[in-house]
């Protein structure tokens, strides 16, 4: 037995020595600054920790452009923040969209995780009360009125702001005006009938393959999102007053029938091969006449080609006002966070006009706050997109049980578009399946 004990002792010793080899690096306690002295006078519950208390703030972000935005955050933003809050150590956890959901769910399951998390447009309904309510802190900050109203819709739940919009990608209709003129149209289509006429006239098929498409909505992913936008434009809410889905409304049917008629106009036969894999913007290559989407699928905003591209909100049946769907990533503070005050401080620091402008310029997106529309946003295309977003924007928000609704819509809309079912069956299926999902989730009785 003594041999075994000797063996155990040696193993333990090796383990302990190995651990001692990597001592934890702690930032030296910083001297109190004027700012800290001020913050110490704030109410205890809301004030960031005093300089004596070292706080480690974890921020989970989607790393869209590795080695660019992350470098900027770590080398410029954090040091600037630490000048004001030297006791707060900011640690970033980078994820991508493929691992975002799993990561967040892990955090909430454990009740422990990043103090600030990156969420997508439709997430507020999913996480709602599990995110810290921030109305009081944001009112004190006083800069929320600078934000585009539609972007605030995506971060608001139960009357409380739950985070800060971080980047914005509005979706609008872009058309090649030179092609429209060639085809005999006066301007960009705005109504269902006009759009279908453009889709028909603008589509070219050669050798049983598409050469040009009169309209493109960027495939399956956008179908269901555009569908919700068109319903919105027709004035139909997604839910009835009792919380049940509204897909049995006449507007829901009109929107879906329009989309199917437009699809049939660009794909008149089952046997036609679609467009080749995209090599750059299809608007630039002339492969499509009109498209609905964000600016990433369009030519660069300083491209002279924009002289021949129009920008408009969307389509209606000729009665309502078309809406621009506003998607944005946003940053929220989970309710489990033990560092709420520091997280709010960092969020507000990140959310300054300068930081928002700098980040969105690197990413090529739109700053959610209007006073950040300078520099690269001083461009006629960006300004016009900004105007549309500000005046006709509707946040892609309060979509309950989004992931399941998305699957239901994609499946049922596809089946209708493929001729496997008629429009009434499709809508009936959408409504009944979604209602069951909402019921299972406890959102309706």
């Amino acid at each position: 037995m003594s041999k075994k004990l000797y063996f155990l002792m040696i193993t333990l010793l090796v383990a302990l020595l190995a651990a001692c080899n990597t001592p934890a690096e702690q930032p030296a306690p910083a001297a109190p600054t004027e700012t800290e002295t001020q913050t110490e006078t704030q109410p205890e519950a809301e004030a960031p920790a005093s300089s004596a208390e070292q706080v480690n703030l974890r921020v989970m972000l989607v790393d869209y452009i590795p080695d660019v935005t992350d470098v900027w955050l770590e080398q410029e933003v954090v040091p600037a923040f630490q000048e004001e809050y030297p006791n707060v150590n900011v640690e970033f956890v980078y994820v991508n969209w493929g691992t975002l959901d799993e990561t967040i769910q892990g955090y909430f399951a454990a009740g422990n995780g990043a103090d600030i998390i990156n969420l997508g447009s439709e997430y507020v309904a999913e996480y709602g009360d599990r995110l810290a309510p921030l109305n009081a802190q944001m009112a004190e900050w006083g800069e929320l009125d600078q934000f585009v109203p539609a972007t605030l819709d995506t971060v608001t739940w139960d009357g409380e702001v739950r985070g800060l919009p971080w980047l914005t990608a509005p979706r609008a209709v872009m058309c090649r005006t030179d092609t429209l003129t060639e085809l005999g149209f006066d301007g960009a289509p705005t109504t269902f009938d006009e759009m279908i006429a453009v889709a028909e006239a603008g589509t070219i098929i050669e050798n049983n393959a598409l050469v040009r498409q009169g309209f493109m909505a960027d495939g399956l992913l956008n179908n269901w999102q555009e569908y919700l936008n068109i319903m919105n434009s027709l004035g139909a809410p997604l839910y009835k007053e009792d919380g049940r889905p509204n897909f049995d409304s006449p507007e829901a049917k009109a929107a879906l029938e329009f989309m199917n008629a437009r699809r049939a106009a660009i794909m008149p036969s089952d046997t036609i091969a679609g467009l080749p894999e995209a090599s750059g913007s299809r608007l630039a290559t002339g492969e499509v006449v009109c498209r609905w989407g964000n600016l990433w699928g369009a030519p660069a905003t300083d491209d002279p080609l924009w002289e021949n591209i129009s920008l408009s909100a969307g389509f209606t049946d000729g009665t309502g006002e078309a809406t621009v769907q506003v998607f944005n990533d946003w940053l929220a503070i989970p309710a489990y966070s033990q560092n709420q005050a520091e997280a709010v401080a960092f969020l507000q620091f990140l959310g300054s006009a300068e930081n928002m402008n700098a980040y969105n310029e690197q990413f090529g997106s739109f700053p959610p706050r209007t006073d950040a529309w300078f520099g690269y946003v001083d461009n006629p295309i960006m300004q016009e997109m900004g105007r549309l977003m500000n005046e006709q924007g509707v946040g892609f928000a309060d979509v309950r049980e989004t992931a399941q609704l998305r699957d239901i819509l994609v499946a049922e809309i596809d089946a209708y578009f493929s001729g496997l079912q008629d429009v009434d069956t499709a809508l009936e299926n959408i409504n009944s399946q979604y209602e069951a999902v909402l019921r299972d989730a406890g959102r309706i009785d």
Partner: protein
Amino acid sequence: MQLTDSPKLFTTMWAIGTILFILVAGYILASVAKFVIRQQGGSRTLQEKTFLGYFFASPWILGFFIFVLGPSLMSLYWSFTNYRISEPIVWVGLKNYSDLMQDNRFITSMFNSLYMTVIGVPLQLAAGLGMAMLLNQKIRGQTAFRAIFYMPVLLASSTAVLFTWRLMLNPNNGVINTIFRWFNETPLYYLNASFIFLTELTSALLVALQIRNFTIVERILSNGFPGPERVPLWLGSEGLAFLWNKPSVVVIMMWSAGAMMIIYLAALSGVPQSLYEAAEVDGAGPWKRFRHITLPMIAPATFYNLIIGMIATLQIFEPAVTLVRDGGQNQSLYFAAYYLWRATFRFNQIGYGAAMSWVLLIIVLMMTFVQFKLSNRWVYYESE
């Protein structure tokens, strides 16, 4: 300062704690094993050997209990609950299982897996065997050829390779359809047209069975026999192009049949040459030798490949997220593993996902059991 304020210190303490836990738990486990041996009257040497054996095996044993058995039992429990992360767990009995039986997406994923099992696996077996037969020939550079033909197995599921396939399979200007178009200008076009007609009809039949509506089959028939302008609509996303999504995956499966090829190669090398020589003396031609000697002698390899191939069809995942979006138009690439992942991590329904994983396990066990029963009729083992 709290321990959690320093990630490095926190991680270090966790590492030390883990090592201590393994040592202590291993010591307890080994002591229990030793105690059992002592109770059974084992010698002192055997007791010592047992102690050391269990002690050194304890990291794996503990890992098995903590990371395999524990989660498995937890998932079994969760499958009877409505567990959604950070919400109270409520016992719902068999509800998740009964919901699954009425879930269109689950039924779709089963039909998709059925297609791959009935169409994809036999074609993959044929491709694997064909390659093995070729590479079993004694030619120069045999080893290099074997390595090259095996390489797709390593690459098949990688995103970059799947993207390459997406480009190659583009119906409009992909290299594969360029070849088809070239053939369409020759008298061989009938082969192309027959292939297109049969593929669309087979896929349409499966969809019709699934949705219990044969309109889609009528549409294929009313389109008539394809003309010389037609090409396969691989990975298409409009109209009836979705019928080509599963055949596209079958093509990739055939290309990556190297794992089956290796098994077949090993089996082929075990077929006694004397059997072929005797058959040749009796006047048997190459086909008869293949049919009556090779196939029966490599039947255990075919059996193994068949089981593995069938199980793999339930686990197809990467093509559903890389080749198409959201499982493809009309959920044509919605496979069981993909839906399991969506239900668990996208819909946040841990209990439902757990139930699905147990149903899949039962399906795999049943398939294997049936195959083992059937194998008595066609698998020949030399030792028998």
